[in-house]
């Protein structure tokens, strides 16, 4: 079976140690996409500009990715992702305030923030309270630069950092992300959660596409109706096909020192109402206060024991 690959993962490369951008040869990307059986993606990449040596024009790639992420933000706006996050993050911060008894400030770090829509939306609405500092982190310098520019243009109280979210000087209270988890394949997924468990963070809450049979069809319809860029349309559908199952996420997130939970698992909710759902990780002492703060919605949360029940 061919491996599903997103074009945006292949057309930029960064040295993990220095953070410097690396040249990407268009022919190599095309070959990789052809080997994965994705001729359409190969054609999209073939249309990208290069220099005389066949290296993708980094400025053109940056402009393209900013444009695709801008279109992508429209989907987040229409699917009210901000409200969906606050619905969980509000009670989570309430539980953290209650458990730690500290006045703050607390710090929310958005991992792989892209244009920082979530962070900027939270800063605009002040939905989590003034004691929560908002930070977006991404490896892509162009996206972070644009996120910074947008935040400054609207005078928002948040900041953006290029680099590794787990290497920040100031520790996060809660790590969040939207649409990032499916980029981690194999052992990298568990390593992603382990890094958070090893940090001083109290919790994490990562939203990703709910892996249902409807997801790829829904993604196709939505990206067709709402996005113009062929790259965005392509990657949107591939993302849905790459989405991790509830079981994979719960298993990977169950790392020492963390109680892994899943909100709105498959089978418990209408898939038309829940296009993205989060895997949550909390320090064990936080689970009870979180459930209390969620009230009736706590019934939508399941732990790894749900897997055992589901397979019984």
């Amino acid at each position, binding site marked *: 079976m061919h491996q599903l690959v997103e074009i945006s993962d292949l057309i930029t490369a960064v040295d993990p140690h220095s953070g410097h951008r690396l040249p990407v040869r268009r022919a190599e990307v095309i070959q990789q996409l052809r080997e994965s059986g994705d001729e359409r993606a190969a054609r999209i990449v073939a249309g990208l500009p290069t220099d005389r040596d066949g290296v993708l024009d980094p400025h053109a790639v940056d*402009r393209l990715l*900013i*444009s695709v*992420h*801008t*279109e992508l*933000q*429209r989907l987040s706006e*229409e*699917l*009210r992702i901000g*409200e*969906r996050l606050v*619905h969980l993050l509000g009670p989570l911060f309430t539980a953290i305030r209650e458990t730690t008894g500290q006045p703050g400030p607390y710090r929310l770090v958005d991992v792989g923030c892209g*244009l920082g*829509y979530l962070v*900027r*939306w939270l800063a*605009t609405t002040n939905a989590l309270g003034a004691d929560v500092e908002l930070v977006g982190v991404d490896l892509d310098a162009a996206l972070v630069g*644009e996120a910074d520019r*947008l935040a400054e*243009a*609207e005078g*928002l109280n948040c900041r953006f950092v290029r680099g590794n979210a787990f290497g920040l000087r100031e520790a996060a209270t809660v790590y969040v992300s939207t649409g990032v988890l499916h980029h981690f394949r194999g052992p990298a997924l568990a390593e992603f959660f382990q890094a958070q468990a090893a940090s001083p963070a109290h919790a994490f809450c990562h939203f990703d596409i709910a892996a249902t049979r409807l997801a790829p069809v*829904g993604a196709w*319809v*939505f990206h*067709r*109706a*709402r*996005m*113009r860029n062929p790259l965005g349309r392509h990657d949107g559908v591939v993302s849905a096909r790459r989405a991790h199952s509830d079981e994979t996420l719960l298993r990977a997130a169950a790392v020492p020192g963390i109680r892994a939970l899943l909100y709105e698992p498959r089978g418990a909710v*209408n898939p*038309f*109402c*829940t*296009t993205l759902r989060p895997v949550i990780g909390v320090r064990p002492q936080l689970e009870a206060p979180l459930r209390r703060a969620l009230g009736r919605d706590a019934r939508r949360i399941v732990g790894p024991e749900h897997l055992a029940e589901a397979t019984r």
Partner: protein
Amino acid sequence: MTPAIPLILLGLIDAACSGFRAYAGSDARIRKQRATTRAVLRGLTVGAVLLLAPALTAALLLLTARDQARTYGTLTAGGLGYLLPLTAYATAVLLSLAAYFVLPFRAGTLAMVIGLGPLTLLRPLAIAAACLGAVLNGGGGSALLVGTIAGAAVLCVEPAVHRRWYHHVQ
């Protein structure tokens, strides 16, 4: 009853929505009410201009007809047939929009996923159904001609506004 007024109203509402769609996805700011209003007005303006094409076609058909009363009757019948599928479509859109804005986020997602998203893709089909309705209701070739031009006009608003104002905007 002449179906011209409801048809023009539907066309203008659709043009305003097309203006919004042409702009949406090109501006990553959070607060953009003013820019959204401007896009809606641009859609409305372009739509009003483009909708002159079917209006002029209908006027031309009437003015050059030997039997103007009969042509008027045929166009009216065709217009009513054209209106019926579009009314059904517009009702579905309005209900989805109302659900999206009024209900909590889960129901809002539902309205978007099974309503507004697919309905956007179905616009050409709605136009095709309207043209068929015009013919089936006795509008004949003249109503089909006006309906096809009107359909093409409303479908052109979004690409025209996007190309004119938002093509290179991020």
